[in-house]
Every structure is written in C-alpha cells, then in structure tokens.
C-alpha cells in the first residue's frame, strides 16, 4: 500500500503500531514469567513480574492518547479508521492480560508448599497453551493475517477443555485431601485467570479479523467452558471422617 | 523530501544586496521614471492649452457683433402696409446715414458711407416693420448690424488707434474744406520725425536699387569690353554685326547710367529731407494716418510740420476759434491706409457714431440663428448645427441597432467556422478604412445608384452610419465578452433560453460599455468632414434645414468652408465654429460618462 501524502500521518500510525508491538511483547513476557513463577515457585520472579505490570498500564494510556489524537487531527477513513479503533481495543485487551498475569504471579508468592504434582503439570500445560495462543494472535496482528487469527479463535475451545478437566482435577484433589484446599483454591483461580487470558486473546483475534476484512465474524464464538455448570458429587466413602 | 547539501547552500544562503549604492541607484531610476511621466503630461497639457488657447483667443471676438442705432424714417410713400416685403428698406437705411452726415455729398463718398451698414440691414428693417406696422410714417431708432469690415475695425483687429491730447492751443484756419491747424508748440514733432524715418527708409530702398543698378552697369561694361574686343578681331559682316551690338549696348549702358544718377539724386534728396530739421512734409498712404479732432470736427493731416498740420476736413468744424489745450485730440491709425479696408474717412464716420453712442457691441445672436452667408456679419452656424443634429440622428438610428445586433449575433450565435472568422477580420479592417472611402461609396451607391437627394442629412447620416458601424460592433463585442460567464451559467441553470439570457442578463450588463462605444462613435461622426464632402455637403447652404431631405451642411464642413473664405471676419468666425464643435464633443463625452455611471449603478 502506498504511503500517506502527509508523512506525519504515516508516522503517527507507525508509532501506534510500534507501541502496540512493544505492549504485546511485554504482555507475552509477563505471562511467561508468571507461569514460570508459579510452576517453579520462584518468589523473586513473581515479585519482578508484579512490578513490571505498571509498564503495560502506562503503554495502554499512551496508545489511547495517540489514537485519540490521530482521530481528532487526521479524520482517518476506512482502513486507517479500523486500524486506530483496533489499536484501542487490542491495547485494552493486552492491559487486561497483563493484569491477569500479575494476578497469577501474586498467587505464586502464596503457593509455597509442595503441591500435587499432577495439578501443577496440568497447569503448566494449560499455561503453555495460553501463552502459545497469545503469541500466535499477536503474530497474526503483526502480519495482518486474519486466517491465522481465526485459527487462534477456534482453538480457544481446547483451552476451555483444559480448564474443564483441571477444574475437575482440582476438585478431586480437594475432596481427597482437605489439607490441599488452600493451595488448590489458589490454583483454581490461577486456572481461571489463564482461561480469561485465553478469552482476551480470542477478542484480539476478532479485532484482527475486523481490521483486515472490515466485517465482523459471522460465526458465534465456540463456548466450551462448562465449569459454570460443573458440580461434583462428594464420594460417599471419602470425607473428613474417612481415613 | 529535500536534502540539504553543503554545495548548494552557498548560493541559496545569500541575502539580498541592500547596499546604499544599489538602493540609491534604484531611487534615482524610479525618480527619473516619474519625471518622464510628469514631463510627458506636461508636454501634452502644454500643447493642449496652447491649441485651445489659440482657438478661444481667436474665436471670442466672433461672439460679439457691433450694431449701429440709426434713426430710420419709415416713409409712408416707400412702405406699403399691404405689401411690406416689397419696400426698399436698404434705401431707408442709407437715407438714415445720409441724414446723419449731411456734409457727405460726393457720390463715391456716399457709396462709402452706405457701406457702413450691413447688407442685411434691409431684413432687419423689414422685420421691424412687420413686428409693428404702426411705425409706418414715423421715425424710429433701429439697431442694425454694421458690415463685416466695420465690425473688424471696431474690434480693433484692423488697426491700433492711438490718441493723445497735447497741452497746447490749436488754431484752425477754416471750418471746412482745406484746413490748416497751427499749434502753439512743436507738438507734431514726433509725427514729423516719423515721416522722416519713413523717408529715410525709402532712401535706403532707393540706394539699394542704385547699388543693384551700379552692379548691373558694371557687368554690362565688362560685356561691352569683351564685345568690343571681339569686334576688333572680327572682319566683314560679322564685324558689322558685332559693332552694331556694341553700339546698342553702349546706349543701353548710357540709359542705365542716367537712371542711376536719377536714383542717386532721389536718394540724396530723400536723405536731405529726412535729415533736415523742420520743414513740412507730406503724409502719404504708406504712412500711419493722422487725424485731428478739434472743435467738433475732424481734419485729416496731409502735410505735417513741427507745429502745423495742413489737411482736409472730413467733418466740418463748428468754429475756427482756438481750441484750448486738452480740448483737441491727435488720433493716429497705426496701420497705413494702404493696408486696411476701412479708410480714414469711413473710420471717422464710425468714430462720430461712437461719440453719438450709437455703436454698441452686442452678442452675435446671428451665429446661432442664421445659416451661412457670403457676408460675414450675417453668417451663422445654426444651419450647420441643425444639419449636424439631423445627420447624427440618422447615424444613430441606423448604426446603433444594426451594430449591436450584429455584434450579438457574432458573439453569441455564430458558429466557429471560417466564414465567421472572415466576417470578423473584415469588420476589424473596416474600422481602419479612411473615411473618405465611405464618402466615395456613398456617392456611388446612394447618390448615383439610388438617386437620393444630394447634400441631405439622410445621405450624410447613412454614410456616417457605415463608418461608425465597425466601431460600435467592436465596442459591443468587447462589452459582451466582459460579462462574466458565471452570470450566463446562472441564467442557463435556471432554465432561461439563450435569447432570454442575452436580453435579460448579458445585454443590460454590457450596456455601459455599448453606450460608451456608441457615443464615442457618434463623437467621431460629428467631427467627420471628408466623407460628407464627397456627397456634396460642402455646398453653400443658406437656409436652416427643416427635414432629413433638405440640403444641409454639418459643423466641420462649415468650418472648412469658412476657413477658405477670404474675408477677415471669417477668421474669427471659423475659430468660433471650432469652439462650438468642441463644446458639442465635450458635451457628448460627458454624456457618455454620465450614462455609463448611471447604468453601472442601476444594474
């Protein structure tokens, strides 16, 4: 595509893209670090991760300001308008991702003791998948590749599945050994946060689709999360009185 | 994108040269330029002022006419109430003059006296009686124009008149006929001196004639010698012939020598007379006239001495008593009698009438009421003015509609092809054709082919219309072109047809320009002479024209005719006619400006 006749318009768009790229990188790192912190139970890393969330927040404010300025001064049309609106939406999503990541890292500082190994494994697997989704969708945005974004959008179902099984698993652990309730509850929230991060990645994917094609997604988002209706029967032989 | 390189910076970094030398050179050049402009204006204005000043100065006298009030007896025998027109009014006028100067008896003198009044006096008297027939049988004072040479004299254009009242006594020898006037002092010395100067000038002339003669004689004597020598050498018949010629030549030379001595004598005589003191000398026609007004009479000086004048009494004296000092006048007419039309006797009659108070300078209404005439004092411009007016009306009525419509067609409707270009080129060329060509065209076509009346305003108007047509067409086209196309588009967009656009919008907006062009064209036509000469408007037209087919003339042609006339009085009248023409032109141009302003405001 040709460049704008007014170079400062072109530069303004480039600046927003750059900020967004930086924000995406930070969010990715934030997520990776927080998953590592919780699975390795790395205190120092967790603290560092919590602190660095401020950068992501600042970038969101900056990107919003830049976008407002562009709209007021340049009256962008068509693709430029979609780019600017997309930038605002994606930065909001990335900011939420950062916050959720910070939350995960915070819990890492609490989870100190040994935890059921299998749960941790499941969590780590889920975390890796979510991180992968984020990476993929940010790449799709950078390439303006809406097919790639659609792949991410559909794969959210897998994360939902993972979350479902993890949910049941943790419930089982809690039922087996009430001593693990505290730990497992934290792990439940961590899993929930990861699932939310996955949803935000899906939001970003929808935004990319609209940005590139100009049309909203026709299909309805696959919702695989059944945890809201999951309940488990307390096994008759288990229980505090059982040994 | 611009790149700044260090090489191009050197030229681009230079600042304007604001040195004092450069600035002062520029100021000087600008001042010079302004000076040239002022100089040009000054020259133009100076020429204009000089031109106009000359015309006005020359023409102003023509606006006044001297009239004499005479007592006319409307003898019942002469004037028949039934047939007023038949009376011999000229005789009545003459008789009035004879009664005033009863001492004039000789026939030649009487004829001279009757020439004082204008030849048109009879018409004045006839109109007087027609206005009030009851004057028949009575004597009334009637104001009649004087003739043109009297008028010129009275206006001081014929000669300067000097008067002085010497402070000595003067004793006349008689009261009529040959009179001798003796003064008690040398009061006429200056006149005598003037005569002597004149004599000396004559002597000089004679001397130079003598000198020429002497030279001629010298040449002839040389010829004689040569001839004599040849005769001596020749033989036979030839010698006879040559000797005969020698004899002829000798007698010729002798005659000349006699003549020469005569000239020398005359010259000597003149010199002696001129250089002598005192004496009494004749005043000839070639010298300024001197008249003495004393005791109610007038004596023309024929001989003058230092203290005495001898002459003829034009007007008899009332007494031969001595006139006291300051009671008698020496009147000198500076231009000699030989050089003027009004002789001393006639001038004296005029002065007497003036002393009567009978001469009055009035406004020359004849200029604006009568047509042309051979007698200058009766010649008026009115015929030419009416003729011009009628001609211009025809010109306007023909050229304006045709010109404007043609221009509209060419500008708005004509397709862009070769024929249209051809027409345009030809119209532009027509504007440059010499006007006399149009006259020839008018002559050939209107007079010869169509047989229209010669010298009529109708034909003149048609010829001038042809001449003005290109001017109007060109001015109209320019005015139409100047109407902004946005107005046309607006009108078209509203749904006006092409004709409506032109008549409702374009034409009103173009009117100021069209009118200006028309009036300029009319002003040009007003001043045209050559084409009208061709169609005969140079004829001598006496009557003021009343219709378009009456013979008429126009102002510029009238000016041309008068400029050609020999009478002195026509000089002033020509300039007066030019002034009238210029006034009309100025008024027409002022009208153009006025109309233009008015139309611009309204639309």
């Amino acid at each position, binding site marked *: 595509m040709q460049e704008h006749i007014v170079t400062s318009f072109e530069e303004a768009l480039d600046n927003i893209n750059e900020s967004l790229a930086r924000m995406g990188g930070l969010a990715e790192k934030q997520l990776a670090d927080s998953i590592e912190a919780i699975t390795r139970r790395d205190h120092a890393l967790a603290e560092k991760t919590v602190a660095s969330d401020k950068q992501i927040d600042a970038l969101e404010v900056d990107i919003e300001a830049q976008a407002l300025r562009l709209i007021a001064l340049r009256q962008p049309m068509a693709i430029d308008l979609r780019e600017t609106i997309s930038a605002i939406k994606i930065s909001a999503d990335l900011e939420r991702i950062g916050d959720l990541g910070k939350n995960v890292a915070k819990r890492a500082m609490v989870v100190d003791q040994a935890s059921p190994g299998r749960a941790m494994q499941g969590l780590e697997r889920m975390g890796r998948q979510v991180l992968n989704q984020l990476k993929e969708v940010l790449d799709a945005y950078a390439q303006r590749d809406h097919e790639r974004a659609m792949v991410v959008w559909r794969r959210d179902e897998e994360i939902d599945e993972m979350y479902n099984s993890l949910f049941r698993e943790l419930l089982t652990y809690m039922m087996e050994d009430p001593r693990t309730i505290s730990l497992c509850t934290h792990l439940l929230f961590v899993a929930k946060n990861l699932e939310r991060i996955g949803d935000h990645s899906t939001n970003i994917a929808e935004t990319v689709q609209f940005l590139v094609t100009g049309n909203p997604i026709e299909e309805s988002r696959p919702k695989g999360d059944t945890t809201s209706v999951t309940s488990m029967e307390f096994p008759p032989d288990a229980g505090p009185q059982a040994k | 994108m611009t790149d700044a390189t260090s090489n191009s910076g050197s030229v681009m970094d230079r600042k304007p040269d604001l040195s004092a030398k450069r600035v002062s050179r520029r100021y000087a050049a600008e001042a010079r330029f302004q000076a040239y402009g002022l100089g040009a204006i000054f020259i133009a204005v100076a020429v204009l002022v000089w031109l106009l000043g000359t015309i006005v100065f020359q023409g102003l006298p023509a606006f006044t006419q001297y009239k004499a009030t005479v007592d006319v007896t409307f003898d019942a025998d002469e004037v028949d109430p039934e047939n007023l027109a038949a009376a011999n009014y000229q005789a009545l006028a003459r008789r009035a003059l004879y009664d005033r100067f009863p001492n004039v008896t000789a026939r030649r003198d009487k004829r001279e006296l009757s020439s004082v009044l204008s030849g048109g006096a009879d018409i004045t008297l006839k109109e007087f009686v027609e206005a009030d027939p009851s004057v028949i049988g009575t004597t009334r004072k009637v104001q009649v124009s004087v003739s043109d040479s009297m008028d010129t004299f009275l206006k001081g254009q014929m000669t300067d008149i000097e008067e002085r009242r010497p402070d000595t006594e003067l004793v006349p020898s008689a009261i009529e006929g040959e009179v001798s006037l003796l003064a008690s002092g040398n009061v006429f010395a200056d006149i005598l001196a003037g005569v002597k100067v004149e004599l000396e000038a004559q002597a000089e002339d004679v001397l130079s004639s003598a000198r020429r003669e002497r030279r001629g004689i010298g040449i002839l004597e040389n010829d004689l010698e040569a001839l004599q020598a040849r005769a001596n050498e020749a033989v036979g018949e030839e010698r006879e012939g040559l000797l005969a010629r020698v004899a002829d030549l000798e007698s010729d030379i002798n005659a000349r020598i006699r003549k020469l001595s005569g000239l020398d004598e005359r010259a000597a005589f003149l010199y002696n007379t001129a250089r002598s003191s005192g004496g009494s000398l004749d005043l000839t026609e070639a010298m300024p006239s001197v008249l003495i007004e004393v005791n109610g009479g007038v004596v023309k000086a024929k001989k003058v001495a230092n203290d005495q004048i001898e002459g003829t009494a034009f007007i008899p004296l009332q007494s031969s008593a001595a006139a006291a000092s300051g009671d008698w006048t020496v009147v000198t007419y500076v231009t000699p009698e030989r050089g003027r039309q009004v002789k001393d006797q006639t001038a004296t009659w005029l002065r007497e009438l003036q002393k009567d108070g009978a001469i009055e300078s009035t406004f020359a209404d004849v200029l604006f009421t009568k047509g042309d005439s051979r007698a200058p004092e009766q010649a008026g411009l009115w015929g030419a003015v009416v003729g011009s007016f009628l001609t211009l009306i025809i010109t306007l009525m023909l050229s304006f509609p045709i010109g404007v419509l043609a221009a509209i067609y060419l500008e708005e409707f004509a397709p862009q092809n070769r024929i249209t270009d051809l027409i345009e080129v030809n119209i532009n060329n027509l504007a440059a054709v010499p006007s006399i060509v149009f006259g020839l065209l008018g002559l050939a076509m209107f007079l010869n082919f169509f047989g229209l009346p010669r010298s009529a305003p109708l034909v003149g108007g048609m010829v001038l219309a042809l001449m003005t047509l290109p001017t109007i067409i060109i001015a109209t086209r320019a005015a139409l072109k100047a109407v902004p196309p946005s107005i046309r588009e607006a009108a078209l967009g509203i749904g006006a047809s092409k004709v409506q656009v032109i008549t409702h919008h374009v034409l009103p*907006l173009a009117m100021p320009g069209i009118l200006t062009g028309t009036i300029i064209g009319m002003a040009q036509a007003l001043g045209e002479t050559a084409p009208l000469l061709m169609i005969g408007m140079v004829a001598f037209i006496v009557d003021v024209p009343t219709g378009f087919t009456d013979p008429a003339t126009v102002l510029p042609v009238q000016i041309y005719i008068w400029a050609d006339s020999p009478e002195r009085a026509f000089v002033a009248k020509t300039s007066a006619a030019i002034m009238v023409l210029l006034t009309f032109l100025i008024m027409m141009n002022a009208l153009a400006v006025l109309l233009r302003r008015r139309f611009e405001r309204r639309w």
Partner: protein
Amino acid sequence: MSVAENIAETPASEPAATNMPVKMETRDVNVFYGEKQALFDVSLDVRKNQVTSLIGPSGCGKSTYLRCLNRMNDVVDIARVTGSIKLDEDDIYDPKVDVVEIRARIGMVFQKPNPFPKSIYDNIAYGPRIHGIASTKNEMDEIVEVSLKRAGLWEEVKDRLAEPGTGLSGGQQQRLCIARAIAVSPEVILMDEPCSALDPIATARIEELIDEIKDKYSIVIVTHSMQQAARVSQRTAFFHLGILVEEGDTEQIFTNPRDERTQDYITGRFG
C-alpha cells in the same frame, strides 16, 4: 414490544438507501471534448429524495458528469455526449425535448455564488417569471417567501428584499442561489462544490440545508471534501480519470471500500 424485542427486530445494517426509487438513470455515458475523452462509460443511478455525492481527485470527470445531467455541456461547442440519461423515464437528450424544460426540472447551484446583479426579490422571481409559474404579484411574493424560507435565508433578508443580491455575504449569496433554484420547483438539484468558496460556519449551514431539503428534492453534489460527502450524502460515487470506479452506500465507501483505488483516495494515499 419490550426494548429487547425491539432491538432484536431492527435489522443490523439494512441501509434504507437502496430502497428508494430511481429518479435519474444514466447508462454508458461518454463525454468527448473534441478529440479528448473525459468520461468513459459511466453508469449511475440517482435515487429519489436522496443525496448522492460524487468524489474524486481533480480532473476526474465528476463536474463533467454533473453538467451532463442538466445538459449544461450543450453550451460548450466542442462537447459531445453519448449514452442515455433519463429523468423519470424521459431521455433528456432526445432532440424533441426542450432543454429549457429540462433545466427547469433539474436546477443547478455553482461553485462560486453567482446571484444576478438584481435585487434579492428579482433574483428569486426571475425563474418563476420566465417559466410563467406565477400570475399575480401575490403568488410571486409567496414563491419568494417560501423559497427563501426553505433556503434558510428568509429571516435574514425579509426586510431588505429590494437590496441587490450581490450585497450579501458569501454564505448568504450561496443560500440565495439555492433559493433561486428552489423557486422553480425542480425535481433534482445539482450542486457543483457549493461550499468550496465558503467558511466553515457557512458550509455547515449549507450542509444542514441540504439535509433539510432532501425530502423534497433529489440532490447530486460534487465535493472534494470527503468529510462533507460522508456527512451529507447517502450514496457516494468515486470517479477517477473519467471512470466510475466505485459506487455504493456512503457508510460502506468510507469505512470499508471495495476498490483499492477508492481506499487510497479517501485515506489520502494519493491526491
């Protein structure tokens, strides 16, 4: 119905634009100025009671096209128009058709306000007078008043109808020209960059006016301001080098045009 049901019933984005009947239909219009071709096979519909805007870079043929619609190109000797242009099923280039009638049914407002050098009253009254619309003075007064009211100028000039039209400000003059066009009760009003000579406030007034009068007239407006086209029109056509590149609902053209040339133009990627 409850609010929720109401929201569910409203279709998401069904533009009312494409439902209006066609007022002027142009097919395969080509325009030649002598040897040079200015328009190539333009086919476009102007819909009733809608504002259609024509956009494009300089020299793209939008003004040429506009002037074809009321046969103003007839004034240019070397102009030649082919193709069919119909007003309500009548071919306006039919030789039997009187061009004066066409121009009374299709009015025009020009780029630079061009009131006649007459009084305000006479400016408005001229059209009705030559078309014989009013027969009495009262009828004419009414036409003048209604036209000026519709053009939003009545309050400002009602006390000075006898003053010359050229004494008004630029914006007022343009509204006067619109009133003048309205006075002959046209069906279509063509506007050739009507606001390009006006300041922003006058421009805004004119845009408001266009919005108000579109329920009585069908309007075609040529503009070089995309924001104005976006604000004012329901349908937009993009011209480039004499070709009609894209045409569609204004909203769609300005958020998601189909043709890349359109996108490049409206985002300012080429002039």
